[in-house]
């Protein structure tokens, strides 16, 4: 039985998050660079302890996940969920698996991926995205030009491939931050 879930998973920080009421102007400015829906999350308020890095990294994260055109948002969520599974981040997996399900209205596809792993049945395009995500995450030093071939055969354009690379790279970062600065709190068993 897989320990990954699409249900809401909590996250508890290991250092005190910034209090939005008493935050410094620099901390508030850094939070403004983050995705609007998540600016007051415990996670971003924890990162706001170091406003310099949050400002840049928040703006980077926002552009990677939400920049218009290019790789459809659902496929960025698919890639980041796949990366989070490889890295064992239960919290990140739950968030991005849910966003994929919300965007595609295909929760059963994501549920199968969570339950059965990457060997589960997927469309050729999704399979190419998931396998490339797993490879770049686990063995970046072994990646080479021919690894892009399955993505091209599945129809990904130059911009879509670049967006995919950015999404995968971003979660090498996000998964490590999430797992070290705090802990996932899984939903209680039914």
């Amino acid at each position, binding site marked *: 039985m897989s320990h990954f879930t699409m249900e809401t998973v909590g996250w508890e920080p290991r250092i005190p998050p910034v209090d939005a009421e008493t935050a410094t102007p620099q901390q508030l400015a850094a939070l403004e660079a983050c995705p609007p829906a998540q600016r007051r999350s415990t996670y971003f308020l924890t990162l706001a302890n170091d406003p310099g890095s949050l400002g840049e990294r928040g703006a980077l994260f926002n552009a990677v996940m939400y920049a218009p055109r290019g790789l459809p948002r659902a496929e960025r969520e698919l890639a980041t969920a796949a990366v989070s599974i490889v890295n064992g981040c239960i919290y990140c997996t739950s968030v991005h698996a849910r966003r994929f399900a919300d965007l595609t209205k295909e929760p059963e596809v994501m549920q199968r991926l969570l339950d059965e792993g990457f060997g589960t049945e997927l469309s050729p395009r999704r399979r190419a995205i998931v396998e490339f995500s797993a490879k770049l995450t686990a063995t970046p030093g072994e990646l080479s030009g021919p690894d892009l071939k399955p993505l091209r055969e599945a129809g990904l354009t130059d911009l879509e491939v670049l*967006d995919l690379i950015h999404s995968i790279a971003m979660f090498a970062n996000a998964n*490590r931050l999430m*797992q070290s*600065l705090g802990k996932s709190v899984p939903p209680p068993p039914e």
Partner: protein
Amino acid sequence: MADTEDLAERLLGIAPDSPLAALRAERASIRQHSEGAYRELVLPAEPGGVSLAERAALALRVALIERHEDLAAHFRALLEQHGDAALLAAAQRFPAPAGADRTALLLRYADMVAVQPECCGQEDIDTLAAQGLSPQDIVAVTQLIAFVPYQTRLLAGLRALQEEASA
């Protein structure tokens, strides 16, 4: 270094007039903030409680863990500029130095966050705090250690695009 310099372009030799440079220009904000986050973490104007030497040492260590020789060489040069021979040796020693001194604790924390962040616990964070690292310092150090794996995969992906174009 000029403000317009871009670490990925320099390490990969991406020519300004190349198709890859044009493609990256379509995501100018990502290019800008990849460079901005790197500078803010490794070369901040106000390093706070974590020195430029310590930052370069942590970045070098993670680049070595990620087996990215060019990135490691870049951070090694920064550490030679900002740090001393003892720190340069410690940052490149595997396994990490034992002991409870600040450098050893920081290097072991880098190994954990880079390789097995799922093993991190409250006591690891508390140990850093007991060394005098503030919440800001702990976030800065963790952001830095977690950013080098981003750089490694960005560079690997861009390199694959270069190889594909020249095939």
